[in-house]
Structure formats: structure tokens, C-alpha cells
């Protein structure tokens, strides 16, 4: 068991989501930074898709009621275990009674706490993610509250985490070649032209060339951007159609909405573009008030980024297992 000692609103249990049910109106849900969840789970010896805690409001703390392996990934800033400062992106073993505390991260938005054995909440339609809109999944279909106690699954990992921890070079650093840094303080987000891109004048120039700000009306469902409104050349009436995370819609007001993990399943606004899937985690780590720019990408580039991420994840899994086995053999 773990017990939530302190939490802000909207912190939830999430895994890699619940795809496959959008046709019956069920959002995919899942972590806003799925790469952080995958790496965190690998570090603690879980399957990549085990359920973790997504912390997006701070401070947050939890107590372990037995010896437990855990890792904090995603956001920057250093977690505390009792009074001891720890590293992010590093698996540790906590003793019974110890408290893990997360402070507000310096620059990023969401931290993930992975637990050896995973969070043992019921799987609903193939996922342990909380669906806030549907009020099901995760921890009783709602955000975590102080005093909540969540069961932890049995870890199947036989090799122990080294006494001083087991860390990784985080994705933003290891994959620097494929995830370009901020440009003039704006996060570059790669996107492909969407179904109604042609409705916008000058090949969508007003959309691609300006810097957008993530407005305060942004959450796990979608980011509403603020900037100079963009207008289609003709206003059209469209039937609602299926949409998904990453889709960028332009409502009549002209300020785009990017659908995120709890994306609506259908919508009728024109779609100017779609964020490539591999860049969604960076958007998930972008804070309200921060700025971004869309960069026109290609399917080939999106595929190349996806392959680089897959290589990194595989390398982390293979190497971390090898290191743990080697240290056990030499202990």
C-alpha cells in the first residue's frame, strides 16, 4: 500500500491509456508524458505500461507502508525521501514508513511516480488510467485525495535495485538530437498539416509562423492557445467527426486548441494540423503560460523520431537489466 499524505487537485493514476474505444465515446486518457511513465516503469522493473501516479499540482507526498522500489520521472526538480534529496529519473528502495515528497518543479509540468509492482487498481477496458470525464478507472474514477490508500502489485523483478539507486540519462538529454531545444524560449512542436489545412490562407502561414502561448484554459483534455487569431478563407459548416490526442482545431474565435490525453472523441472544428505523436510528451511537460511554435514536419521525420525513441527505450531496458544482473552477480 501507499498512502497519499498531501496532494493538490487533479493528480491521478495513469498508465499508457485506453485506446480502441473512441468509437463509443471513451477518451484514450493515459499519461500526458507517456515516455516518462515507460522509463520510470523500466527502472523499477515493471512492464512499461504499469499504472503510475501523475502529479501535476504540487506539493505532493505519499507514504510507503512497506519496503518499496520507486522512481520519479518526467518533471525536473529533485524529490525528497524523508529529508534526503534524491535524483529524478532514478529508482530507489524506500523503507516502510518513509515519505516521498515532490516540490513544484522548476520548469516542467508533470512528475510521475512509478512503483515496483505497479499500482494495483482495477483495469477497466484494458487500462488503469483515470477517466476524469467518465468518472471511472484509476483510483475510483477520481483524482487522488489526502488519505487515499492505493494497493501496490507484486513485483516480478528478481534483480534488486542497487543500494545507491539506478538512474538513466533522461530522454530530453539522451535524445537531444531528435528533440530540438527551445528556440527563443519557445518549444518547437512538430506537426503535420491536418484535414482542413487548405482552408487557411497562405498555406497556413499565420498558424505556423507565430509563437503561441498556452492559456490558463488548458488541462488534460486540451490546450487552448492564445495568440493572433487565425481565420479560414471561408467559414464552413462541418459535421462532428472523430478526433484524437494531437489534433489541432481552430474554433470560430481563431485561437487553436490542441487535443491532449483526455481528448474529446469527436469534434466539428476545422483541423489545421496534428502534432506528431512523439512530440506529445514534450507538450505534456509544457506549462500553462509557456510559449510554443509549430514546426511543419513530415511523415518520414515523425517515423524517424519514433524509431529513435524506440531505440532509446529498448536500450534503457536492456542495459538496466544487464547492470542489475551484473551487480547482483558481483555482490
Amino acid at each position, binding site marked *: 500500500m501507499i498512502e497519499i499524505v498531501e496532494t493538490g487537485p487533479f493528480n491521478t493514476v495513469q498508465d499508457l491509456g485506453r485506446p480502441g474505444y473512441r468509437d463509443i465515446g471513451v477518451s484514450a486518457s493515459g499519461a500526458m508524458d507517456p515516455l516518462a511513465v515507460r522509463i520510470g516503469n523500466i527502472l523499477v522493473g515493471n512492464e512499461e505500461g504499469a499504472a503510475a501516479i501523475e502529479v501535476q499540482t504540487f506539493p505532493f507526498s505519499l507514504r510507503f507502508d512497506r519496503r518499496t522500489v520507486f522512481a520519479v520521472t518526467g518533471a525536473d526538480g*529533485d524529490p525528497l525521501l524523508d529529508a*534526503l*534529496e534524491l*535524483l529524478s529519473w*532514478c529508482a530507489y528502495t524506500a523503507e516502510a514508513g518513509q515519505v516521498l515528497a515532490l516540490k513544484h518543479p522548476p520548469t516542467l509540468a508533470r512528475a510521475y511516480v512509478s512503483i515496483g509492482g505497479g499500482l494495483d487498481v482495477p483495469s477497466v477496458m484494458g487500462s488503469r488510467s483515470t477517466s476524469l470525464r467518465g468518472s471511472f478507472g484509476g483510483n475510483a474514477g477520481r483524482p487522488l485525495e489526502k488519505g487515499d490508500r492505493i494497493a501496490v502489485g507484486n513485483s516480478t523483478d528478481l534483480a534488486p535495485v*542497487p*543500494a*545507491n*539507486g*539506478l*538512474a*538513466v*540519462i533522461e530522454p530530453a538529454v*539522451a535524445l537531444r538530437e531528435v528533440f530540438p531545444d527551445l528556440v527563443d524560449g519557445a518549444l518547437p512542436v512538430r506537426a503535420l498539416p491536418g484535414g482542413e489545412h487548405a482552408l487557411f490562407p497562405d498555406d497556413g502561414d499565420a498558424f505556423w509562423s507565430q509563437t503561441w502561448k498556452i492559456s490558463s484554459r488548458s488541462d488534460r483534455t486540451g490546450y487552448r492557445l492564445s495568440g493572433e487569431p487565425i481565420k479560414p478563407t471561408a467559414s464552413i459548416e462541418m459535421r462532428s467527426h472523430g478526433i484524437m490526442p494531437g489534433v489541432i482545431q481552430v474554433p470560430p474565435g481563431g485561437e487553436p486548441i490542441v487535443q491532449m490525453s483526455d481528448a474529446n472523441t469527436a469534434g466539428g472544428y476545422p483541423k489545421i494540423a496534428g502534432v506528431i505523436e512523439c512530440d506529445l510528451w514534450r507538450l505534456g511537460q509544457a506549462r500553462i503560460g509557456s510559449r510554443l511554435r509549430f514546426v511543419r514536419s513530415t511523415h518520414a521525420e515523425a517515423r524517424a523520431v519514433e524509431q529513435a525513441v524506440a531505440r*532509446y527505450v529498448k*536500450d*534503457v531496458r536492456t*542495459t*538496466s537489466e*544487464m*547492470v542489475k*544482473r*551484473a*551487480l547482483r*552477480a*558481483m*555482490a
Partner: protein
Amino acid sequence: MSGIDFSDPATIAFLTDALTAAGVSGLEISRPGGQLRIVIATGNEARIDVSATSQPAPAAQPLMTVKAPMAGHFCPGSPLRSPAAGRLPRTVSAADILGFLRVGPVLLPLCAGRAGILTKQLAEPDALVGFGDPLFEIEPQS
């Protein structure tokens, strides 16, 4: 599938001799039928935590060394400290991270292991170090 019988004492003896000769500290072979693990006892077991092996020390007080827990690239420095804190000598506490051993994308934190004065860094940044190689020297403070 090779025909070597890893449960044969002669094979194990041969492998042990070979490991000892090569200065390799351990070996693990996993096969569907079982697992063989050989650990060479050196009498000078290097561990990630500081071992109190008193090397034939010239000085009276025993120096502690932080050794490489396995082979990897040596990355001195800690992300939890400002770069200015990297000067030597300096006082360290047991839980301080002095650096990392990097194996591909994996980082193994190297902890001081005990309080004292960090006097020396014994390997170059990014050098490939082997199991048991000394990386830092700490003068214990009593």
C-alpha cells in the same frame, strides 16, 4: 545451442581459472535448464560503498576509496550540486553523490559512503573504468 555442460565441475573449474587469469570478477550464464554464477573471491571486494580495506597505506590514517561497482564510463560531478562545489579537497557527507558510472543510457550513482574530506579524483572524466578501479579518495574525519 552449444553442447557444453555447465553443470560439469571440470567446466566450472576451467571457467574459474580462466576468469581468475583474465582478472574478471564474475560471470553469469543463464540457460533454459539452469543458471551458473561464478564470483571470483579477490579478498579485496570492491563495492560501490566504501570498503575499509587498508591498502598498505603509507599514511597512518586509512584512506577510503570509492571504487567502480562495475565497468563503465566515469562521470564525476553531481547534478544536485552547483559546478562550484566540484573543487577539491572538500568536505562530503556519506550520502553525497560524487559522480556516476555510465553504462549506455544507464547511470549508477557513486556515493561517498562515509563522511570525510574528498581529496582526490583518481580517474579522468569519461574514462572507461573497470570493476573495482578506485575513483575517489576520501580522508575520513573522526
